């Protein structure tokens, strides 16, 4: 059924190549904003391949942000799923702006979804983080251990931050959006966001370095 709804785009050669490309992981290269906006327009007019490409362009970013805010991978997985569904079903309510990228809109939906989850069940952030449930089989074992150690250090350092600081750094480093875009999402002045970012980056960086030196995670 997936390929039959709007046959025009799906059955063209370009559509078939796009489908193959996304199946083979060809959507992992980040697209520029004009390309993203084109995908939004195509997805709005019913092009499912475009919707899938939009999904694949943003899903990891959303997961990185919500994982920084929530306590576990399982919660991050649920929230990412809900947020991406909201994104794909609310494209008609999105209006393009020159001062904020599409990613900022997606991320604001993700953060609001995470906040609702936070309110429903007050999470205790993981103190130690957790190992990934699947280690990349192609990665060197040593590299996988390093990644797990860094991840655990980051999660522990994040757990020691206040909720607003955690949200702001997660948006900055997880979604890679700028201070003005963050300010709009967290409803603060951009200057305040920049100050918080500066202060938190120093604190977070120092804490992560200290934790990695201790090396007490694994």
């Amino acid at each position, binding site marked *: 059924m997936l390929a039959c709804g709007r046959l025009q785009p799906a059955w063209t050669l370009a559509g078939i190549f796009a489908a193959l490309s996304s199946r083979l992981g060809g959507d992992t290269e980040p697209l520029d904003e004009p390309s993203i906006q084109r995908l939004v327009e195509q997805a709005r007019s019913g092009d499912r391949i475009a919707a899938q490409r939009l*999904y*694949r362009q943003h*899903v990891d970013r959303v997961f*990185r942000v919500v994982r920084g805010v929530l306590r576990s991978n399982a919660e991050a997985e649920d929230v990412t799923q809900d947020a991406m569904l909201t994104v794909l079903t609310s494209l008609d309510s999105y209006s393009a702006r020159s001062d904020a990228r599409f990613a900022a809109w997606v991320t604001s939906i993700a953060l609001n979804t995470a906040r609702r989850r936070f309110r429903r069940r007050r999470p205790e952030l993981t103190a130690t983080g957790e190992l990934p449930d*699947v280690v990349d089989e192609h990665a060197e074992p040593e590299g996988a251990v390093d990644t797990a150690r860094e991840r655990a250090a980051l999660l522990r350092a994040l757990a020691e931050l206040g909720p607003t600081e955690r949200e702001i750094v997660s948006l900055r480093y997880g979604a*890679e959006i700028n201070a003005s875009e963050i300010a709009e999402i967290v409803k603060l002045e951009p200057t305040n966001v920049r100050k918080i970012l500066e202060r938190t980056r120093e604190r977070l960086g120092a804490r992560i370095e200290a934790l990695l030196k201790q090396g007490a995670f694994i």
Partner: protein
Amino acid sequence: MTDAEITELWVTLEPSPRERARIENRVLEWVEASETSLVTEWLDLIKANPIGGLGLVAASALSLLMLSPVGWIASSILR
């Protein structure tokens, strides 16, 4: 730590391949489950390609009719 180093560190929070596949399956499953009706799809097909689309729609409607109990009853009456 620099901005770039912290950004790089955040990559460690990405979902595992298994988590990524689970999320994708659930999202795309839901999107497919909320697809448009067959009639809407036929209309879209005709809009996209009026001549070829009409032929395909007629063929699929006929095959649906012939394979359904309504089709069996109709054909047995006609015989």
